């Protein structure tokens, strides 16, 4: 029998015993549905994580230098960071590492009171170099950003985030208003475009930026930075840039391995990989569970097929008598198992996609449909059918037609 006819026969046979066919499909369906949904939700989470990182860092084409060794955790701020990254380091990196285009520096601080009129809040405060906006690809929604002239003059000017604008200026135009940062008067000259949530899920818009020279000399009286963003001439060279910058800073800081570095140089790609890795450990476990469900579906197919074979001994005998070879019978039962499993797989994919869309609606994350996972799930369902159909099909092919016809 050719394959098309064998499949047709399988479909007819399966439609004659719908309940059993449905039960055979059920396990594979649930397994494939969870695989599809998990893969899609996992992908959506990964993409969302990437988006958040992108928002936090502005761009992936940079190398980040943070104070503190590799074991340092959390967002470095003026109170937590060791005083090791200085202006000389930034200048040396920009000048001596050939791959580097420019270096943006920040001084990051929490718990500073910001007041306007009788309103008082504590946003995060960033002292930024004038090229920060460019390196990060940030946009100014209203007014102007921090300029080199502001920094040189140590001007008391500030650019505020959207959430801070809402908190301080719910109904007025903030541009030109005077606010007090730790009781030092500053003039608002711009509003940053909204940046959304950072990787931790907290808003990145409850913040304000002032020139880094102003911050270090007039506000905080600290000469060290809490972070540097190094923009590369060739973004693909980040690994080499990390090596070069590390070597330069070790030399400047007088660090000789195996002594631990007092700074950390990473690329956002590496950070993202680390975060999504944590996510994928979880999703690997869940994928394993889904795979087990699919295997159980296979076992269900096998046991119901075995029952089917013993119930259909007479049919097998008849087919053998009228000209079916053992090979034909093997192919018939194997095809039945593969077809029922494949249909279960298709139903599972439909169910999984439905689940993905529901999950996307609930989490408000845009759905990510992984077509490769879906193709893989469809293929896997066929393979499960073939694998678990093999033993029943073998038994069917070896039914003695003489015995079967006598009964």
């Amino acid at each position, binding site marked *: 029998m050719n394959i098309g*006819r064998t499949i047709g026969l399988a479909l007819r046979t399966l439609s004659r015993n719908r309940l059993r066919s449905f039960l055979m499909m059920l396990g594979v369906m649930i397994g494939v549905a969870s695989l599809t949904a998990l893969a899609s939700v996992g992908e959506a989470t990964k993409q969302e994580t990437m988006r958040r990182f992108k928002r936090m860092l502005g761009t992936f084409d940079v190398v980040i230098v943070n104070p503190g060794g590799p074991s340092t955790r959390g967002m470095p701020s003026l109170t937590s960071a060791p005083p090791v990254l200085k202006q000389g380091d930034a200048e040396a990196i920009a000048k001596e590492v050939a791959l580097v285009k420019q270096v943006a520096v920040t001084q990051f601080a929490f718990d500073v009171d910001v007041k306007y009129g009788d309103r008082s809040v504590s946003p995060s405060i960033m002292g930024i170099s004038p090229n920060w906006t460019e390196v990060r690809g940030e946009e100014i929604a209203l007014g102007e950003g921090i300029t080199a002239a502001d920094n040189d003059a140590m001007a008391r000017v500030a650019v505020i985030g959207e959430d801070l604008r809402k908190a301080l200026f719910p109904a007025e135009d903030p541009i030109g208003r005077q606010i007090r940062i730790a009781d030092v008067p500053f003039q608002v000259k711009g509003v940053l475009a909204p940046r959304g949530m950072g990787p931790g899920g907290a808003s990145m818009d409850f913040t304000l930026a002032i020139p880094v020279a102003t911050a270090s000399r007039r506000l905080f009286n600290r000469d060290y930075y809490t972070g540097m963003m190094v923009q590369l001439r060739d973004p693909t060279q980040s690994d080499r840039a990390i090596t070069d910058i590390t070597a330069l800073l070790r030399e400047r800081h007088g660090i000789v391995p195996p002594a631990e570095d007092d700074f950390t140089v990473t690329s956002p790609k590496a950070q993202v990989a680390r975060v999504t890795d944590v996510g994928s450990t979880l999703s690997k476990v869940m994928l394993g569970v889904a795979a087990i469900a699919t295997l159980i579906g296979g076992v269900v197919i096998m046991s119901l097929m075995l029952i089917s074979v013993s119930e259909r001994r007479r049919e097998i005998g008849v087919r053998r008598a009228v000209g079916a*070879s053992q090979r034909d019978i093997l192919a018939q039962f194997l095809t039945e198992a593969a077809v029922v499993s494949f249909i279960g797989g298709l139903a599972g994919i439909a169910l999984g996609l439905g689940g993905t869309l529901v999950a996307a609606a609930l989490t408000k994350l845009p759905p990510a449909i992984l077509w490769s996972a879906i193709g893989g799930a469809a293929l896997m369902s066929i393979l499960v059918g073939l694998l678990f159909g093999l033993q029943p099909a073998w038994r069917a092919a070896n039914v003695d037609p003489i015995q079967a016809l006598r009964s």
Partner: protein
Amino acid sequence: MIEVSHLARTYTRGDGTPVPALRDVSFTIGKGEFVTIRGASGSGKSSLLNILGCLDTPTSGSYRLDGEDVSGYTDQRRSHIRNRKIGFVFQSFNLLPRTTAAENVEIPALYTGGPVDRERALAILGKVGLGGRAEHYVTELSGGEQQRVAIARALMNDPPLLLADEPTGNLDSAAGESVMKLLTELHREGRTIVLVTHDEGVAAYAHREILIRDGLVAADRPQPGRDTGGPAAAASASGAGA
């Protein structure tokens, strides 16, 4: 058509002792003959039929079907022979449940490698008197009708040889008689028919009777045969056979 010589078939019991079912059987059946193989249960007639039907292979001896020695054929080749040259009719009909009459008739065509000719299946059903029953599920049909569906199935690939194993055994006498008439008619059309039975009344329809006893041919004799058939003729033929 059929040439068996020194055919033997020995089964092995669970404890390893050999049980001979056929000891030494030789005969020839020409094309177009209508022969019954008769014997008591346990005589070896079923073993003989299984070998003639290429469902089983002899332990020794040779079996030539249509000039071809098929005794040593592989499963694949024997399946091909069954498909093209042999039509089976069984005592218990052996139709597939939850399947229509026409679908049952088509089954042999599934294994030819060619297209399935629904028209032909319907035509054969018409010929066996079931033209209006093609789309009926077999469970909706009477015993006699089911056996006629089975005969139609046996004819689907137009085999030269029909093997019938007690075809009237599960039927009442009227239905049995109509089935025998149908077989007689198929014989008249030129088909070779070999019928296994223990019933002398049925045997009387054939032209020749081979009697099997203890795995050997006990008698091989001509029968008057009946091309018309009827209760009176059946009674006299069964008297003559006894």
